[in-house]
């Protein structure tokens, strides 16, 4: 896993080398080779690569879908508009809060759970815990939200009843309270995604050479010391992957779109995360300003890439 640490840089370098080498390669078994990769590559080019590239171009134009033949190139005008768009920045701040809460739960709990599961030597028992931890991941996202809505229900749900019993007063519906919307959505999203992190961390933990622990135990290192001095440094590549995936959540739109539907952004618009705002601009408002929405998504994407790059730098420099 050592290479993951610099995977984007590493991929770029490998890509560049491959371009330079391609000219001198022999044709060899080329026909067979193209037959094997052909179907996959063509499907990928048409339905995946093309939309991504085309989407980048859209971001630099004033493309309005409902205005026929209207997609003039407009340079950085979209960005000038974003700077002055108050709704965008409000939703962006909500997205940042959402990402921070999501990240703390998603990483913190997953790490503790993974370490505990790796302590269990009985393979079948550990298997059961892994399955439980992964169950939320496999639920459809719409079902997960619906399940949580019942679970949080102030009158019949466990959480609602618990809150009422603890604080004595009737509980509010959390997703209808404008201050609670972002934390609640983030908690649900973290719940849904933690299982993958548990699994990623477990793969890392199982790959740690057990001789290292034995040697440390002989030298008198306790459980805590082994965790901080062996496990954590060796898991840094896995941490990097998890942090980078979490940074991608900045553009998340789905939870709010599922829960409140496309036409309602939640109480006082509190469910309007940045990704959702871009979706509204692109598919619901006015003459569907695709150019502007694409520029917003690109802004969010670049910010999250910047965060990822910073994480790479910090974790590559070694010690935290």
């Amino acid at each position, binding site marked *: 896993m050592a290479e993951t640490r610099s995977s*984007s840089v590493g991929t770029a370098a490998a890509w560049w080398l491959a371009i330079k080498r391609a000219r001198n390669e022999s044709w060899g078994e080329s026909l067979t080779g193209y037959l094997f990769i052909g179907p*996959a590559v063509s499907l*990928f080019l*048409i339905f995946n690569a093309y939309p991504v590239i085309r989407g*980048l171009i*859209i971001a630099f134009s004033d493309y309005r879908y409902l205005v026929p033949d209207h997609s003039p190139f407009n340079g950085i005008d979209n960005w000038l508009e974003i700077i002055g768009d108050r709704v965008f920045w409000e939703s962006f701040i909500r997205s940042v809060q959402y990402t921070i809460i999501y990240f703390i739960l998603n990483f913190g709990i997953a790490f503790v759970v993974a370490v*505990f599961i790796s302590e269990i030597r009985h393979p079948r028992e550990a298997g059961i815990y892994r399955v439980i931890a992964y169950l939320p991941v496999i639920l459809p996202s*719409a079902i997960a939200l*619906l399940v949580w809505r019942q679970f949080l229900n102030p009158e019949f749900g466990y959480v609602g009843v618990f809150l009422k019993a603890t604080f004595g007063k009737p509980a509010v519906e959390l997703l209808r309270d404008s201050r609670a919307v972002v934390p609640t959505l983030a908690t649900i999203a973290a719940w849904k995604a933690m299982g993958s992190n548990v699994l990623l961390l477990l793969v890392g933990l199982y790959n740690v050479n057990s001789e290292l622990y034995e040697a440390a135990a002989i030298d008198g290192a306790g459980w805590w010391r082994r965790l901080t001095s062996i496990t954590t440094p060796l898991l840094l590549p896995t941490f990097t992957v998890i942090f980078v995936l979490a940074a991608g959540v900045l553009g998340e739109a789905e939870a709010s779109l599922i829960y409140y539907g496309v036409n309602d952004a939640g109480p006082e618009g509190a469910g309007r995360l940045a990704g959702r705002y871009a979706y509204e601009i692109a598919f619901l408002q006015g003459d569907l300003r695709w150019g502007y929405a*694409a520029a917003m998504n690109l802004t969010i994407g670049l910010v999250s890439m910047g965060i990822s790059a910073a994480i790479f730098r910090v974790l590559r420099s070694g010690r935290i």
Partner: protein
Amino acid sequence: MDMEGLRSPHKRLRRDRKVARVVAGLARWRNAFLVRCLLALLLLYFIAPIIWTISSSLKTRAELFQATPSFVTLTPTLANYQYAIRRLTGFDVFFRNSLMVTLGATVLQTLLATLAGYGFARLVFRGRDFIFYSMIMLIFVPRAGGLMAQYELMSFLGLRNSILGLILAFSSGLAVPVFIMRQAFLNLPRDFEDAALIDGCNRLQAFWYVMAPMVVGASMVVALFEFIRVWGEYLFTLTMIDDRDLFTLGIGMAMQFLPGIALEFGEFTSYGAQAAAFCLASAPVVTFFLATQRWFVRGLMEGLKF
């Protein structure tokens, strides 16, 4: 006898050892117990909403409206399931659509990724690494107008409002699957296929009869990821499908149950029946996961070794 034991140094040593072993055993037992307690507490956050749903789906009406909801039901009933299937308009249609899209995309993607993974790992041809690394590079390009461009493309190809369109679009996310499969093939020794080729197999036969069976673990990981992703997908399907007869379960259920949009289909408020519907809608993906999970961790460890 005890006095005698104490007097003899040899026996005393043996007894001390025995005591030390018991103490160590107790400590280990205590640690194991503590780990399990903490783990159970943490896993409760993972599983409590799921238990709640399953138990609600089996409760009778009286139990559902108890002031303090119970964790398990003492009088399980299937009435909620019957009610859900009867009353949920279009549940069977949504279910069939979801199944078609998910199975189609999973089979297509796993097959293509395995073929391509083999090609990239084992065959020598012009531009091989360039093509592979270009696919991987694209993961790092931000999805600025991806959804819009896909909408445009699908309209142009006449694939909006079509199950086939969904299958093709979902199975096209091939970068990571191809990466996993290539990695799996790279980890196999060359000798197997060399032997097959010398014995007169052609490339395709060597691939299909010799190599592919050895990477089943990795293929299962790819298939499982795709199955989970497609079965739970929401936003893309919502954008591409307007025709109610082509809705998948996620969208159908959200439309049925969520405030604002639920009105269109009539109020459907029985908690038990809702919970039963959630269980039914999750059943296929949970089944698929439980059936393939024994490959899962092993396959991940094979596929993620960089």
